[in-house]
């Protein structure tokens, strides 16, 4: 395959899937800059394997899978963990300084849901996002996450249950 043809295929894939993959990565890493960096790496991997792709459907699920794997690798990485410790210290310090101010800020229900989902354990968060946000079918989620359909269904159910409990707690103590 000629380089110009590969470039064109990559450009088309980036135009078509770039944004949805960035949204996908964002749901894992909660940072736009990192999400974009991860998606760029996914596209580089696509470029390296470009000759093996023939069908559109395969490409989309492959890109989803590789982006999810990249995100999980990032979340496990030392640089990310270091960053988390840093934000925890910052949050704790800010919490003691402005707790009164914080308490009077009323978040809208949708924002609360959004925040709670983003802070769910990854295994629940990913299936909830893939299902409700990216509108993937159970079978597609199973494919991109390398889980079985039954596990996806179970995690979806438990994730929603957990979300409900956390929402109730937020209402009670918020």
């Amino acid at each position, binding site marked *: 395959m000629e380089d110009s043809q590969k470039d064109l295929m990559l450009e088309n894939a*980036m135009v078509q899937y*770039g944004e949805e993959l960035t949204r996908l990565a964002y749901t894992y890493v909660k940072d736009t800059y990192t999400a*974009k960096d991860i998606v760029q790496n996914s596209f*580089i*991997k696509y470029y390296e*394997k470009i000759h093996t792709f023939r069908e559109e459907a395969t490409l989309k699920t492959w890109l989803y899978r590789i982006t999810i794997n990249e995100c999980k690798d990032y979340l496990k990485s030392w640089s990310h963990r270091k960053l988390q410790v840093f934000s925890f210290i910052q949050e704790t310090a800010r919490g003691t300084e402005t707790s009164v101010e914080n308490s009077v800020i009323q978040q809208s229900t*949708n924002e609360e849901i959004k925040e709670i989902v983003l802070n769910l354990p990854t295994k629940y968060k990913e299936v909830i996002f893939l299902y409700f946000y990216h509108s993937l079918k159970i079978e597609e989620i199973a494919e991109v996450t390398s889980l079985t359909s*039954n*596990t996806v269904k179970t995690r979806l159910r438990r994730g929603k249950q957990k979300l409900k409990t956390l929402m109730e707690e937020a209402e009670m103590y918020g």
Partner: protein
Amino acid sequence: MDDKQLREALQEIENDVAFTEHDRRKVFRKISNHEARNQNQKRKGSKKHLLPVLASAVVLTLLFIVFLPSLTTNQNDFLSSDKVGTNEDITSIVVMVRNSNGRTDANLLATFDKETGKINVISIPRSLKVPILMPNGEKLMEDKFTHAYAYGDGAKSASKTIGELFDTEVDYYVAIDRNDIKKLLEPSDAITADGVEEAFTIPSHDGGELKLLESMNRFTPDEIITLLGSDERNEVISDIIDEIVKKFVYGLTEDNLEYLSKEATSNIQSVDFSSVKDASYQYDVKTIPVAEGMISNRVDGIFYIEFDNGFLNDLKRELYDFKK
């Protein structure tokens, strides 16, 4: 909060995620930098060092098939026409984990289609009743598949036996000692299965019991091998086996394969592992469940598993079906 509200709430998330032209140019720049770096490394003759030994075990060896010489040269001419697997793009391999008594505790038959990049895997119950064959096809006796390695001529007999059962010629075999597999496993390799709705136990190879709890399970290397060779199959166990197989295939590293290639008994001569990096992303792995067609039986007080004939024919077809 209902599904609709949840969907609406999530749609409000972070709008600044457009993958702009700037981002696209950055990808091209990174590719060109990456290629330039690779050129330099080749010139210097340095070998790229890949990830250290991480998650990997039994099923990693499935990916041996990906790097076999037969995939680049069409060497499968020896397959006779009455066998199921006659497509020259398809390679088959049996992966066995043998214990200190020479019995195989886990036995996986895998087929790989070069054309579609798909891998089909069947995990054979250890007590499956089979005619045990010598490498030349001579029948020794009928017994559990787990004994084929010890009673016959090691891995060659086990491979011939499983091939005959599935009407195919198995191209390659790999047998690994249980202890060698365990050396590759680290605590992080634990498989979790949270699809278990009700706690239950399955018998393990050493007469003990493996407990599957409701909610979270963490399996040790020994338990993973027990699960792979389990005579007890239901939807939950089939799902866990599928999850284990996928987890290991996708966790493949070059170092794992090199380690296994040194420790294993195999008819694979030489394998180039240098292209392993990211290889796992290319392949779709499907584990074919066998629970549905299994019949438990006792002959002279000895427990056996048998496959229903019609189901066995379905399995043979499914093993070579890469369309789904």
